[in-house]
């Protein structure tokens, strides 16, 4: 397939030309590209297109979104099968039913195709295919996770682009063990860039026969994350809490949490109660909605000698 020489241009997938040319044939970057096939797949030659495909966003798509307002990236962190994708799907289904999230109304999404394909798993649209959990998020070799997007408008009219990471759990378990592992690049990207974190502890596993390794996995993730979180809002989500772990195990995970991330809050969720999935997302969204207040600048004392501390006549004006 012919594609543009510009790496950030997805005209070959039917999106707008990255350089803004209306007629793609007139774009020098397109014409200079690898001409293996004839034309872009478009029956109407001169038509206006949009710069998103509806699928999960990648890094180059962020360039279209970030200039328009405050963007919130929520890192959804947890081991394989901890319920990360189900948590995201539950929130989309809640919006579809008219629910608000953190007192904010739905105001659009660049990834409706991705949301719809997740939601399709929980629907009764086809008798031959009963609803089921969404399949495992593919591990892939991508260096950044697929990002799901929601635009939200708060009660005071403030607009936020919310980006939620939908990443495979293996990234985080790998990263927890070896921070600079090659296949944990995606996890490092999330931890570096997220504005808030949701860390999922899988209660079903913490209560089941593999509770030992499960406790180890979540404690390792918390310990590792503790080095990087700093002041960012973090919530520990007890997922699948309809199968609660023993108080001892819960206490041990809590101890690890209070040591690694003392400011983290805890929320429980289960798909038995769909509201709990929204509350879980709100736990990260509410504290991150407004940026942290700027602290007043304190000038460091560089020298105790008053003469040397003199900063000029305009120092206090």
């Amino acid at each position, binding site marked *: 397939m012919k594609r543009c020489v510009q790496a950030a241009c997805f005209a070959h997938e*039917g*999106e707008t030309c990255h350089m803004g040319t*209306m007629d793609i044939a007139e774009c020098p970057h397109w014409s200079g590209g690898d001409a293996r096939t004839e034309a872009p797949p*478009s*029956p*109407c030659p*001169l*038509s*206006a*297109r*949009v*710069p998103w*495909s*509806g699928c999960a966003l990648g890094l180059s798509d962020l360039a279209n979104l970030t200039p*328009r*307002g405050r963007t919130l990236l929520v890192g959804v962190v947890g081991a394989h099968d901890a319920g990360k994708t*189900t948590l995201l*799907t*539950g929130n989309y*289904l809640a*919006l*579809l*039913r*008219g629910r*608000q999230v953190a007192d904010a*109304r*739905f*105001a*659009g*999404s*660049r990834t*409706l*195709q991705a*949301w*719809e*394909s997740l*939601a*399709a*798993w*929980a*629907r*009764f*649209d*086809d008798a031959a*295919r*009963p*609803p*089921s*959990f969404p*399949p495992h998020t593919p591990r892939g070799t991508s260096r950044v996770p697929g990002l799901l997007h929601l*635009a939200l*408008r708060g009660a005071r*009219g403030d*607009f936020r682009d919310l980006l939620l990471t939908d990443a495979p759990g293996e990234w985080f378990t790998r990263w927890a063990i070896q921070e600079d592992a090659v296949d944990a690049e995606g996890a490092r990207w999330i931890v570096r860039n997220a504005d808030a974190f949701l860390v999922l502890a899988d209660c079903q596993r913490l209560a089941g026969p593999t509770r030992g390794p499960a406790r180890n996995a979540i404690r390792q993730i918390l310990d590792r994350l503790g080095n990087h979180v700093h002041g960012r809002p973090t919530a520990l989500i007890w997922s699948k809490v*309809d199968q609660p772990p023993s108080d001892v195990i819960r206490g041990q995970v809590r101890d690890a949490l209070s040591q690694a991330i003392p400011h983290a809050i805890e929320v429980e969720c289960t*798909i*038995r109660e*769909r509201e709990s999935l929204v509350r879980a997302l709100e736990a990260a969204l509410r504290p991150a909605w407004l940026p942290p207040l700027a602290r007043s600048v304190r000038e460091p004392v560089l020298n105790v000698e008053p003469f040397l501390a003199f900063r000029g006549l305009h120092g206090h004006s």
Partner: protein
Amino acid sequence: MATPELVLLGGPDSGKTHFAGQLYGRLRRRPGALRLRQDKGTPSDLSALEEVLRCLEEGRAAEHTSAGVWEEVTLPLVDSNDHAIELRWPDYGGEQLDELFRLRAVREEWRARLANADGWVLLIRLNAETSYPDALEELLHRAEGQVGVTERSVKWDANARWVEILQILLHVAGLGTVTPLQRPRLAVLLSCYDELGTSLAPPRERLMKTLPLVSAFIESNWEPRAVSIWGLSALGRALDRESTDDTFIDEGPENQGWVVSPEGGAPDADLSKPLAWLLGVL
């Protein structure tokens, strides 16, 4: 003289043609908030409405507008304050909106109209929209013994589909939504409102109940005074292509059909009211 631009957005079978025919009949024979100008009389070209006017007089529904059609009727109007308005009312096959969604592209002539329009008229027939109930709680019981289905055809929920269409239209028209829109004004007409049973509630509640995501999207992205949601029954009853409805034949199509105003309440026979609101007359 004002020559406002309106864009009419509606899928197949949403009632665009019937609304156009009935609107003309009202303006001609039972004027309300808007009426046809006396000096210019009848529009010079009525060919776009010829078929629908004939069918309605015979008490039957008009034929489906074919997909490739794009026609316009220019209506010389005057409002209650005697301001002259030249309104170009389009009629086209609703499949063009489906094509837009499928190809994720907007034809250049549409784009120019969208960008210059003072008002958008969005026709949604709630009864024909498919939204899927989800079974989130059910998943727990079905999780065990699950056969690994890897493929799933994605049928878009009507909520997501309309939101995507509106997003695409807004984008190609160059309209950002970081601050709520004041222009173009948006009139949402819930067409075939008679299919939904009688209710005195405001039509926006019906939209919120049936398509909550679309309702949230519209309320988030338009200023409250720039959007209004109406119930519309252009014919007042269901007609099909074979019927010979005596009420239509005897009383005339101009005495059929009604709108429900955004505040709700009893049906109002003045079909030009949503347009009058869009044009700032009301």
